[in-house]
């Protein structure tokens, strides 16, 4: 009988150890995912020909959720750029040079048709951000706004 006990013990112990590890890992994981424990800031954005309105011009750093509604009538995109200084234009002098800004672009929403609402979830560090529509002529036509993350 003693043999049986010897044989059974190791798997039971292994199961307990594994369960414990899994628990710890889950706890760590959730903590890692939720670096900022508070609920994310929600920024409502309204786009229309040819300007962008932000309901909140200031948000706290961390996860920022943009709810972008295009009121049209034309299509508009939505780009969030970390812009402490001025923004560079392409040689045409009309559109922003997105290539030069590649490192500063925090996130974007592809052109959306009038009436659509899209959500963009970003993790933003404190700073000054520009939100723009960089479709041909739109930026220069007035589609830009400033968001301050504290």
């Amino acid at each position, binding site marked *: 009988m003693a043999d049986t006990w010897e044989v059974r013990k190791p798997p039971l112990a292994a199961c307990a150890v594994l369960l414990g590890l899994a628990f710890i890992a889950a706890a760590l994981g959730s903590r890692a995912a939720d670096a900022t424990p508070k609920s994310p800031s929600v920024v409502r954005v309204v786009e*229309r*020909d*040819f*300007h962008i309105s932000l309901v909140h011009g200031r948000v706290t750093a961390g996860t920022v959720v943009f709810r972008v509604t295009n009121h*049209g*009538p*034309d*299509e508009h995109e939505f780009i969030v750029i970390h812009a402490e200084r001025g923004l560079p234009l392409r040689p*045409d*002098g*009309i559109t922003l040079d997105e290539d030069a800004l590649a490192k500063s672009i925090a996130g974007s929403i592809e052109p959306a*048709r*009038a*009436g659509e609402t899209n959500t963009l979830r970003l993790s933003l560090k404190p700073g000054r951000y520009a939100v723009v529509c960089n*479709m*041909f*002529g*739109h930026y*220069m*036509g*007035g589609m*830009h706004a400033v968001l301050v993350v504290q």
Partner: protein
Amino acid sequence: MTRRAREFRPFAPRARSTIIAIVVTFALILAASAAVSIWSTAKSRNRAAVVEIAGRQRTLAERYVTQLLLVRGGEQASPQRTGVLLTQSVNALLNGGTAPAVEGDDDDVMLERETDPRIRAEIVEQQKLIRDLLANGNAFLTRRTGKLPETAGERITTTDPLQRLRVLSALTSNVSLSAAREIAARTDRNVKQTITLQVALGAVGILVSVLLAWALVATTRRQTAHFRSLVSSSTDLVLVLAGDSCRYASTAVERLTGQTQSQLTGKGILRVIHEEDVERFQAAQRSGDVKELVFRMRNAAGEWRHLEAHLTDLRADRHVRGVVLNSRDITERVRLEQELTRQAQRDNFGSQLVEALEMADEEAAAFDVVRRAMVEIGEHTPMELLLSDSSRAHLDQTAVHPLAGAPSCPVESPYSCVAVRRGHAVVFETSEALNACPKLRDREHGPCSAVCVPISFMGRSLGVLHATGPDGVAPSKEQVAQLTTLATQAGARIGTVRAFEKTQLQAQTDGLTGLINRRTLETELRALLRDNRPFALALADLDHFKRLNDTHGHEEGDRSLRLFSHVLRQVLRDDDLVARWGGEEFLIALPDADAQAAVEVMDRIRAHLARTLDGGQVRFTASFGVSDSTAAASLQELIQLADIGLYLSKAAGRDRTSVGVWTDVREALGAGNGAKRAPAFHRAAAEDEPNDS
């Protein structure tokens, strides 16, 4: 809803309506599909023009700015014209109308009013931008500064006039592109919808036609089933023949012959047709002219059935390509006809027999008819007619087949015969069978078959008609029927003849003595007188008969009368006539004899009577009076004379013979008148009895 019993119309072209429905459905679906195609193509063409114009705006906006710059640079250009084109085009895009041609590029294009609100909003936006662009352009040309209109919601972030123009141009261009893209996308959607609609229409068409085709098949099948069940349930035997072989045999033929369709088709049909009919059968279907045909077909039980066929030549009909035989089984009719023919033959035999028998006025003649009838029934069939005698106790062979002889049945009395006992014809197929008549066994010619038909008349059995044949072969129905007819008719005739003869005999003879009676003798005597044949008469009277009667009884009296008549017959010749004249009187006529000869004969009679009575019976004597035909002319007078002789014998002491003479009478009676002689004599005779008793 109750389902009403529909009229059964197997020939109604019901499939036609289904086919019409299929065609109409297809036509409708095709028409709808074509309409959708035309409509969507027209729409697409219009859309293509719209897209083209919308796209052109972008180029025009850019061209406008370039022309402005050229004009500012002192070059020859017409930005105003481009501005007009932009304005006219955007107006046409929005509200319909003519989009003007751009120099060297294209032609005027007619546009429809835009209806899509989303696209309209974009075009309105474009309209505003173009207005702003043109305003800025004019300001640029005139170098005018100040607040410029921004009606499309833009807030241009530069004040440099050229930069502003470029931004507005870019916006116009972008918005135009967006509108063109939107219009193209919607056209794509429309095309997609059209394709979906067409696919749906096609699917509906296919579904409907499948359903209708199924209905068509079902209708055709039902119609076929109607005909199939009509044909298969019909008792008509239908064959389709082509080129000496069978192409189709109906279910009824299969049922009749017990053969399958495959066995019957081809040459197989000839196996079930009677070999005598095969040639006619083939010839009929080959010629096509024969309309009716009677032939025999073997059924499943191996019997030949008579079929009557109606032929229809449908060799020219490409659906049949053969001769169609519609046949009916007429075996029963044929049998009935054969039976009627046999009946007629039998009736003929019967009527001939009746006529022949009617002509037979005595038994011997009837037997002769029977013999001839026997030959008629069967030339080589031994037959015999066994009839009972008057005692009805014995059967005698009365008629035998003149050629084939008699079967010689050993039966002796009518009631030993089973046919007589049963009262109807009995047929034995073989004499060796357990239930065969024992009288058929151990015949001279060995085992045989036999028919025994009882003969009767008025319910009384007369005998039996007997015939034999080869062992194991039952006589034919016709023979039995003819024998029965012969027995019935012969029985009736023989019975009638016998009854007639008996009646005649009873009328002519005296019941007690068997002698002829007074009337018969008178007829015979008148015949003798008429022939002038001489004869003698003797009147005999038993002496003291009344006393004998009274003493020994009437039976003894009757016995004496019979004994006396017997003695008379014994002594007299065959030609002589003797009759009981009444009571104990007898009248004897002796042709070709005179009175003297008669006296001698009477004396011999008296002597013989005396000898006969020697045996101790009641003794009696007789007295005789004699006359002959020479003594008087009339029979009455001759009898009176004999009477006178009798009176003389009585007067002289009886048991003697006297010849009657007229004088004797006158002396004896003292009568002077001849007319009174007879009554006088009779009185004397009457007086005799009491005196003698």
